[in-house]
């Protein structure tokens, strides 16, 4: 997964763009313990959101297990799956710290998780259409 930064565009006879690029990768993380914890947090929160979305969309089937996905790959997977502004996605793509990318994603997930779960709960209640035999609690 080699990322690059465009240094300049190159004049060429080709009909497509050619650029001079410089490659970069995520830097090594020194605090493995914190990275592991953040990775676990992001994986858990992301699965909660994914489960809620599955309920909202009436989807069936199992979600893939992402608990063993390595931190950098998980950070790209979650960044790709989340609905974010383009500028924010670019920022996440350009970051050179897996831990920082995961921290940003954890903060974003924290903000949306309750909203998705509430929507899933209401969707389940709405499907029952009053025949569920339970008292409906709407906050």
């Amino acid at each position: 997964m080699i990322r690059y930064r465009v240094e300049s565009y190159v004049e060429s006879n080709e009909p497509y763009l050619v650029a001079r690029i410089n490659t970069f990768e995520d830097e090594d993380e020194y605090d493995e313990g914190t990275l592991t914890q953040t990775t676990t947090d992001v994986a858990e929160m992301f699965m909660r959101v994914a489960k809620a979305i599955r309920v909202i969309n009436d989807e069936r089937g199992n979600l893939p297990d992402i608990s063993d996905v390595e931190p950098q790959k998980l950070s790209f997977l979650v960044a790709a799956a989340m609905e974010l502004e383009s500028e924010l996605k670019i920022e996440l793509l350009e970051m050179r710290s897996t831990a920082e990318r995961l921290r940003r994603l954890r903060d974003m997930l924290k903000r949306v998780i309750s909203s998705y779960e509430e929507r899933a709960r209401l969707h389940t209640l709405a499907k029952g259409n009053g025949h569920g035999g339970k008292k409906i609690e709407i906050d």
Partner: protein
Amino acid sequence: MDKVGQSRELPLFPLPTILFPGMPMPLHIFEPRYRKLLTDARETDSLFGLSYFDASAVDSDMAAGWAYRMRRRDYRSAKYYQTGVQTFWQSV
């Protein structure tokens, strides 16, 4: 291109969406210039760059992206139509 900090020339494939490394890349390559890009890449080191490009932005630039090296199975799995090449490659 396996080293970090390496400077080189790279053909660019501009995309209207932001793809992340490791994710599936559904591409429909129909413009003759990008079909040529694929052919040229195949004849060299099979590398090309995927960069986000917002055509509607006034000062849009392709500041960053990531490089993808096509593999033999990518060429085999691509579907070649008169209207272009359809792929669903999985990057690594």
